[in-house]
């Protein structure tokens, strides 16, 4: 039985944690939340120097060629710090999409730039109200030109390229394709959109005859997206676990220090049991996330099920810990000055980014049905 990370992977985790503790304390998150910058660029540059964006990129494209397990431990630390950098978007979603569906030429160009920190990628799926689905995508791609509007796009302003879900004229699920578009062209307009988490900036991207190219085969967009979301669900789960743990300890520390009715509020069972429940949910999420990581690494056939379970457990753990952290703090936890808001906001952003728990629960049961039928 070897259901744990290796000593080297734990060491890497410690290094990333130390870097983020030094360079990305909560005051940096607050600076981005309050300010205009698209992300904490000095933190991002430091992460590039550490090799974070290069972690999962094969060596032939200038990456470090490390396994998903290394990226998982990094993701956990990024989540713990609620780091205001394009990690989920560029290092997870864009990089994984290129690895899954990119042509050799695309990988050569974009993965190398990602590894070197010269490019920031993002994924542009939603088009405003209504959850994305193949039949509802109005952005079109044809003759090498992309037209339409995507919002909200995480890190849309910071990104130098985007992978866009566009209608290419097929039937049913095959109506859509993934399209890679360089955002540094005049045919692309970026506009900031206000969201519940100003520490992670989102944008509206408008394409007017923007030059673009298919990523993967035409009509394969939705299927590739499902596979991409399975991988992303595992990395997101680790980030959510990190965030949930941070919120839990923040609440614990406050409960030890805050006195009410003559004693620390942390000595009351109403608080203790709430935080014990945070721990229970956290460990359920961690165990499910580990299995997701294992399946991701082995290319295991159980990945779709493991990813869905990791996603559901981690979303629940982060939502619960982040909201009960505010509750444990009482009134002070609801002020703008309190750090409690970072995780509360980030938990919801992460819960919705790949589709919410309701959708993943439905997916999980479908996958269980398929597995049982097989």
């Amino acid at each position, binding site marked *: *039985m070897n259901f744990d990370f290796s000593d080297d992977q734990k060491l890497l985790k410690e290094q990333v944690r130390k870097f983020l503790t030094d360079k990305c304390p909560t005051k940096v998150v607050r600076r981005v939340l309050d300010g205009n910058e698209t992300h904490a660029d000095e933190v991002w540059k430091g992460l590039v120097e550490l090799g974070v964006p290069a972690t999962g990129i094969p060596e032939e494209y200038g990456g470090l060629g490390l396994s998903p397990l290394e990226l998982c431990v990094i993701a956990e630390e990024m989540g713990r710090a609620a780091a205001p950098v394009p990690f989920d978007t560029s290092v997870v979603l864009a990089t994984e999409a290129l690895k899954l569906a990119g042509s050799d030429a695309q990988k050569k160009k974009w993965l190398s730039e990602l590894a070197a920190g010269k490019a920031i990628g993002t994924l542009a799926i939603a088009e405003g109200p209504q959850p994305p689905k193949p039949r509802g995508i109005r952005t079109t791609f044809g003759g090498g030109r992309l037209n339409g509007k995507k919002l909200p796009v995480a890190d849309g302003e910071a990104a130098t390229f985007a992978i866009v879900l566009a209608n290419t004229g097929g039937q049913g699920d095959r109506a859509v394709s993934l399209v890679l578009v360089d955002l540094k062209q005049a045919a692309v307009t970026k506009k900031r959109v206000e969201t519940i988490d100003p520490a992670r900036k989102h944008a509206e991207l408008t394409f007017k005859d923007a030059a673009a190219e298919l990523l993967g085969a035409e009509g394969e967009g939705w299927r590739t997206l499902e596979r991409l979301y399975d991988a992303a669900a595992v990395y997101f789960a680790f980030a959510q676990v990190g965030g949930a743990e941070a919120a839990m300890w923040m609440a614990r520390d406050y409960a030890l220090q805050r006195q009410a009715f003559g004693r*620390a509020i942390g000595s009351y*069972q109403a608080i203790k049991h709430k*935080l*014990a*429940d945070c721990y229970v949910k956290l460990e*359920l999420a961690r*165990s*499910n996330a580990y299995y997701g990581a294992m399946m991701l690494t082995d290319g295991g056939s159980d990945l779709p099920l493991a990813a869905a379970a990791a996603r559901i457990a981690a979303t629940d753990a982060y939502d619960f810990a982040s909201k009960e952290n505010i509750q444990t703090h009482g009134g002070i936890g609801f002020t703008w000055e309190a750090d409690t808001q970072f995780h509360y906001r980030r938990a919801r952003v992460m819960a919705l980014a790949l589709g919410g728990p309701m959708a993943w629960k439905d997916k999980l*049961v479908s996958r269980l049905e398929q597995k049982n039928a097989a």
Partner: protein
Amino acid sequence: MDFNDTPEEAAFRKEVRAWLDANATRKSDDKASFRARNDDPELLKKAKAWQDKKAKAGYARITWPKEYGGRGGSPILQVIYQQEEANYLVPLGFFDIGLGMCIPTMMAYASPEHLQRYVKPALHGDEVWCQLFSEPAAGSDVAGIRTRAERDGDGWVINGQKVWTSGAHYSDYGIIITRTDPNVPKHAGLTMFFLSMKTPGVEVRPIKQMSGGANFNEVFFTDVRIPDSQRLGKVGEGWKAALTTLMNERLAVGMPSGGLDVDELMELARDTDLEDGPAIRNQQVRSKIADWYVQQQGLKLTRYRTLTALSKGQTPGPESSIIKIVAAPKMQDMGAFAMELMGPAGIMKEEVPHAAGFQAQWIGGAGFRIAGGTDEILRNIVAERVLGMPADVRVDKDVPFNKLTRS
């Protein structure tokens, strides 16, 4: 990451399997063959015979030192043996308390002569042990026990009552925690002893549980005389001895849970017609199935993390403390939900496939949430030991036991 055995573990598993194949019958995959222990006297006889066979082959207590009949093996080997044994039709459960809790306490406190006398018969299943701790007025607050032990010459006289004593009705010996000094605060006035359950004045009365079973007992002590040589630890240090016992309550990891689970719930949901089609297509039903699957997987995988630490010879982290907190309410809630899916017939004991199984979970879950630490006490333990939060204010801490307000 993988779920594989190390080469040594694989070799041990192979050895165990070969021995089990030669000495026992493998279970079919039918989950109905997972049966909890019952009170059939023949079963105890069979269990004793099986225990003896195991002890002779050196599998009865793998982690114990060789001098006590163990093999001085690592905890992971014990787990591997239990995992393998669970696949065979063998009577289990009668010796867990004795070998898991009572005898380790004896090893910590009993004289060499007593160890010489008692360890081997316990290991070979000749003598069964029980643990006499809980009382009608001392459940979660076990240090609040009232059973008295009073000095009488060179011995002690015990009067009082214990309750929830598993297996007392077939046990030969027991370890008992008593109050020897009511004039000091509750934890300070306790002393532990062991005694024969056949000592005059000991009376065992089975308790019929809500589930219909009767594994537990009330045990009454009326002027029960025992020699001072049966004292375990110093007078007034019974709480320390009790903690030794309770610390040995672990290592229940790695055992398959058996019973009905998400697979059977899905089967039921497939076969149940709701107004708008099969229940499995209903989003509320799917959402609940998904939640329980995530819990079921989460618990299994959490055990694997604990086993990983054991396999590497490390001390496991506190993660396994979540298992009962999740498993017990899940059993109760999933049982209740499955019955709801069956409609009004969900209350009937027959006719509906799996009805009896889910009803058993619904009933059993109510007990499981209490046994061996209530949901509430377990949350206190997680908060205090894992999260480092303060213990609750103890109003009885410095008050002599005989000055406390009692229920």
